[in-house]
């Protein structure tokens, strides 16, 4: 493939999260900053290489036009990705919140209500035994 389609395909794919995306783990020597910073630098390097290859093989006007087109490609991809990411973050927060609230409610049932009901039941049984014993002394147990 010539550099121009490779370049444009790379930019289009970078902005496309619709299909399945398989991740690969790579070892990095000396990456300063967070993983996101390192990844950003790797992408910057890759894109710079793509542009360099394009610049080496095409006229300046072609390169300029490709860069302007490339900028339009990434700028059109940014808002939907940004929105989808924000929406996803909200959904995750909602699920996590629901799980946490439900978890607390379960903990109250499991650790407070059930032991207390069992304790009440024990007390009721003891009281019933005592009442029956008292009634037995009067001949009225049953």
């Amino acid at each position: 493939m010539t550099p121009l389609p490779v370049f444009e395909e790379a930019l289009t794919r970078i902005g496309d999260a619709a299909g399945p995306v398989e991740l690969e783990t790579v070892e990095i020597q000396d990456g300063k900053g967070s993983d996101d910073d390192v990844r950003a630098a790797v992408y910057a390097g890759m894109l710079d290489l793509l542009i360099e290859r394009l610049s080496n093989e095409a006229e300046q006007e072609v390169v300029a036009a490709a860069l302007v087109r490339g900028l339009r490609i990434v700028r059109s991809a940014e808002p939907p990705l940004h929105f989808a990411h924000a929406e996803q973050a909200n959904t995750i927060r909602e699920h996590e919140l629901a799980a946490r609230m439900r978890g607390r409610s379960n903990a109250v049932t499991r650790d407070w209500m059930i032991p207390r009901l069992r304790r009440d039941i024990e007390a009721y049984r003891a009281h019933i035994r005592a009442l029956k014993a008292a009634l037995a002394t009067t001949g009225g147990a049953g």
Partner: protein
Amino acid sequence: MTRAIQIPREDLERLRRLLPGMSTTQAVAEALTRGSRVLAGHDDGPGADVRAIDPHDLTTLRRRLVQEAVEVAGHRFALVTGLDRRREAVRRELRSYEEGLALDRDVVPGLKLEAKELRRRIRQLEERARAAGIDVDAVGPPIRWSETIHVDGYEPPRYESDSDRRARTVAFFQRVGGR
């Protein structure tokens, strides 16, 4: 120091094709060095109108494109990895409902109904004891009623099975169809 990071495989393959003859580790290291240089000290801030950039100013165009594409790649990565987080969050929520349902359906009703029945039995026996002249307050061990869980009006929740729903639906349509 070595660290492991994740990158979409298709982007790594693109990088490997750009740097043939290098191992993945070498290609990533090369891109990292080059990219760090490109990004260092060249943050142009929010995107300017493409039309406002001189199309002959390749340096600015190139820098802007790299900066903005990197940002988009970051959003995409966050979205992709977010899918796993979302699945995990859904799984945790579902598990919490299942646990709650198991407690509310299998454990709590039995205990509450048993407690309700025992309280009813106590009232009955106390009534008979009073009738027999027994001071029920003196019969031990005493119960601190205010500290017990009130279950006298408790009715267990009704859970419908599929067959219940089906039978009701059939009955409904039989009734409606009979008009």
